[in-house]
């Protein structure tokens, strides 16, 4: 119980830090983001006072309102979900854009990451178990895939499989011409088809890391005393590999998974750029290129929230699979 409270407390602090950083960045950077936004918005029509207030709360105002009051307005805005209006997708509100794009990102990137983790851990378990086998030679190869810049690998795969061999589509999240969004089989099939290549590139580029980590931990764990006990007990090799070796060896990888979530998000932005995938990363890049500060800040906030949430989930999972953590705190 104490462990849980400690963890929650940490995440509250992290969230508060992220909110505060988000508050200060536009106010500390050179240039005047508020004026830029307001003038851009003004091109589409008169700006309502609420919109003006929302923008000012988010990005700062040059009236002499005390900083603390601004901070209060900002927190209030965020809490009520009012993240302002987007310039690049006018007149859509920031929250609605996020609502539309976030599921695509979580779907594609989330699924691909989980697959990559599962495959990497599985292969690593076997490689570590049969130490010295040919699988050990696969590892340097997959690790080399990791040192290749992801977008380079993705572009080449896109070129080869998309342009040259035409196995996969070149961009987009689904077939906009022939399917209609909804829970119909044509749409679902289209989503899967369009998501296959991006997912493949993600898996290829990250599976090596999981495999290597798991293999090393397996080799380490195999020299532990309880493995000797298991062997002496005459247990079946499968059970020993899973319940005695892998169950212990996987622990650092799980906490590593939590750390990697931040990088997963980073990778997702590049993936969506390469494949023109309609996720939150694409929206962020669009916002950057049109100086849509409100959208940018909003997306940053949501991305941070997602990462914190996912981290919390993984931490809780870790406390379930390692009984010692519950005692440690």
């Amino acid at each position, binding site marked *: 119980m104490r462990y849980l409270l400690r963890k929650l407390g940490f995440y509250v602090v992290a969230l508060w830090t992220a909110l505060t950083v988000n508050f200060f960045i536009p106010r500390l950077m050179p240039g005047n983001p508020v004026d830029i936004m307001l003038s851009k918005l003004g091109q589409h029509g008169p700006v309502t006072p609420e919109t003006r207030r929302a923008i000012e709360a988010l990005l700062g105002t040059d009236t002499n309102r005390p900083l603390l009051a601004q901070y209060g307005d900002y927190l209030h805005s965020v809490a009520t979900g009012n993240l302002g209006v987007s310039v690049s997708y006018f007149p859509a509100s920031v929250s609605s854009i996020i609502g539309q794009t976030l599921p695509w990102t979580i779907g594609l990137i989330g699924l691909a990451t989980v697959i990559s983790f599962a495959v990497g851990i599985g292969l690593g378990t076997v490689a570590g178990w049969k130490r010295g086998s040919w699988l050990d030679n696969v590892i340097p190869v997959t690790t080399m895939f990791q040192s290749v810049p992801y977008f380079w690998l993705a572009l080449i795969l896109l070129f080869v499989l998309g342009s040259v061999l035409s196995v996969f589509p070149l961009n987009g999240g689904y077939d906009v011409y022939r399917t209609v969004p909804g829970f119909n089989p044509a749409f679902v099939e289209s989503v899967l088809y369009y998501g296959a290549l991006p997912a493949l590139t993600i898996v290829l580029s990250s599976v090596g890391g999981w495999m290597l980590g798991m293999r090393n931990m397996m080799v380490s764990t195999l020299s532990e005393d309880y493995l000797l006990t298991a062997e002496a007990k005459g247990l079946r090799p499968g059970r020993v590999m899973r319940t005695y070796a892998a169950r212990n060896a996987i622990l650092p990888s799980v906490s590593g998974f939590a750390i990697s979530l931040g990088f997963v998000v980073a990778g997702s*932005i590049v993936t969506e750029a390469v494949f023109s995938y309609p996720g939150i990363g694409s929206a962020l890049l669009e916002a950057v290129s049109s100086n849509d500060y409100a959208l940018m800040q909003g997306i940053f906030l949501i991305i941070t929230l997602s990462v914190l949430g996912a981290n919390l989930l993984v931490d809780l999972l870790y406390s379930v699979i390692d009984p010692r953590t519950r005692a440690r705190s």
Partner: protein
Amino acid sequence: MALNTQAAEPIDSAAVGAAPRPARRRLGLPPMTAKLAAGLVLGGAILFFGLVGPLFVQDPAEVHDLGLAGPSAAHLLGTTQTGQDVLAQLAYATRGSLTVGAIVGVLTLLLSAFFGVVGPYAGGWLDELFSLFTNVVLVIPGLPLVIVISSYVPDKSLWLVALVLSITGWAGSARVLRGYTLSLRSRDYVLAARVAGEKRSRILAVEILPNLIPLLASQVVFAVIFAILGEAGLSYLGLGASGSFTWGTMLYYAQNGLALRLGAWWWFVPPGLLLALFGAALSLINFSIDEIINPKLRNQTRAARRGWRMSRQQLEKAREATL
């Protein structure tokens, strides 16, 4: 009934299974394996190219008449869309990327060593504070933050990019270092030094830091890989250092010049290839450092197994019995 034997002879070797320690190991260096040699040679070659190459090539910014031409005698790696020599750009780009890598490597080392070693060694509330700070920085996603910051500053120098990458990248290393320092802190020889009254700063420098060196080295190598890949990714998104040549900016221009679609592989492939090769070289070096940090890995490698003097039948028998 007593079972008497003659006086026992001394055992052949006191150290069970240890060959005489080779000179390299005595120095604390990783054993020279094929992997390490490959990594050093490859990395060294690229480093050499980056340092010396720019002195021997043409001006990378100079525009020639042949736009998007393949490799020829005049231009060994062809030209870009605007007629600039690719080989020259590659040499300068190597230097640029390696510079970013070096800067980030040093900054990350300093930041992570400070928060990851000094903090836990000092203990108490300072350690708690540093740890909290590290974890918070770690959990806040780096690239979006970098993107947001970068978007406010349209013209970035190489140094700025390196700085931003360091600020978002040190936390992972710090956490790893912290874990290791905490375990070192309670080792017997450290406790002995404290009881003997040695000054804390001296203990840190003399007892703890030397043991951290392999881990620090491994983390620096990771940081350099991260920096180079990160800079490439940023540049690809158009947020990189404007006005400088790096592998990433080359790829950005190549992508924008539709190099791949137009089949201009000589422009698109070399920067990415060098990036991959350098990253691979660093990974190989890291593998070897890993074997020092985790001695259990050493005995299980295929190289170690070759040192065994077991017959095939004996190995088969052993395989039956063990898992």
